[in-house]
């Protein structure tokens, strides 16, 4: 519900809520590729990069000032805990599994491959689809856009395929 507030506030500021387009802006501003897709005035999108920076700051503030140490253990559904244990994940001890985002996970080259592959899929897929959870699922569906509904169906098709078909082979 508060997320709709974020979207409507950005609308009120004359902008739209969509996080993944920042990836394209970073490409255009930092990597300066020659492809036509990146030939646009990225300075017009600086507001969104500032929003992105604010999101990181928000994560910092939430952790440092709004969460007592050790109280951010996710109270996961017992069935999920059991399913993940079968894949080799211990019960949650925080917000993220140490197997992927902890020091132990970082020592396993397999973890790096997963994070790199996941990032590539996110960057490639969101731009191909024309948006991510914010641009399609929240902004697009709120504006009753058919391409957004198809994209969200795609999000779930990919997510279900990865979780239920590929995960048992990966983990």
């Amino acid at each position: 519900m508060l997320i709709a507030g974020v979207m409507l506030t950005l609308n009120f500021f004359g902008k739209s809520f969509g996080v993944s387009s920042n990836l394209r802006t970073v490409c255009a501003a930092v990597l300066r590729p020659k492809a036509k897709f990146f030939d646009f005035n990225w300075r017009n999108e600086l507001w969104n990069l500032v929003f992105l920076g604010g999101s990181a700051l928000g994560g910092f503030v939430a952790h440092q000032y709004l969460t007592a140490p050790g109280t951010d253990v996710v109270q996961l559904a017992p069935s999920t805990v059991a399913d993940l244990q079968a894949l080799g994940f211990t019960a949650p001890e925080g917000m993220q599994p140490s197997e992927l985002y902890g020091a132990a996970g970082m020592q396993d080259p397999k973890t790096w491959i997963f994070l790199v592959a996941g990032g590539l899929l996110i960057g490639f897929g969101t731009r191909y689809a024309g948006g991510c959870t914010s641009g399609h699922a929240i902004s697009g569906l709120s504006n009753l856009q058919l391409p957004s509904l198809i994209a969200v169906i795609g999000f779930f098709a990919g997510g279900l395929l990865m979780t239920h078909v590929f995960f048992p082979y990966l983990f």
Partner: protein
Amino acid sequence: MKFLKFLLVGVFFGIVMAKSEAMSWYRIQEMFRFQSFHMYGIIGSAVALGVVGVALIKRFKVKDIQGNPIQFAAKEPGWIKALLGGSLFGMGWAITGACPGPIVVNLGYGYWPFAIVFVSAVVGTYAYGLVRDKLPH
């Protein structure tokens, strides 16, 4: 300080992502396994309220902060790109447990390996830009 308001909205968004646990890999797994209402409640309530908000803005021709009518850009049509691109993103979402917003929220929260995800996502978008003309849309 015309950017300050965007910084503040971003901070609010980051706090919401963290305190609602939408930034957690565990919550995304729970969602893709249909074992909890948690994420469906977060996304569903956002869309429900968003539909009403957008409809009201259109109905009453609400103006933005600069006095211009608020406009909503139509999404580019094409079901192939939406379905294929969406599926690729969905697979990345399931592995990493984060979509683009929560990637940076996690970085701020202190989960540094998300830097790997972020840099890879930038490279992924770069790769899309290079092969865009060869893909079906």
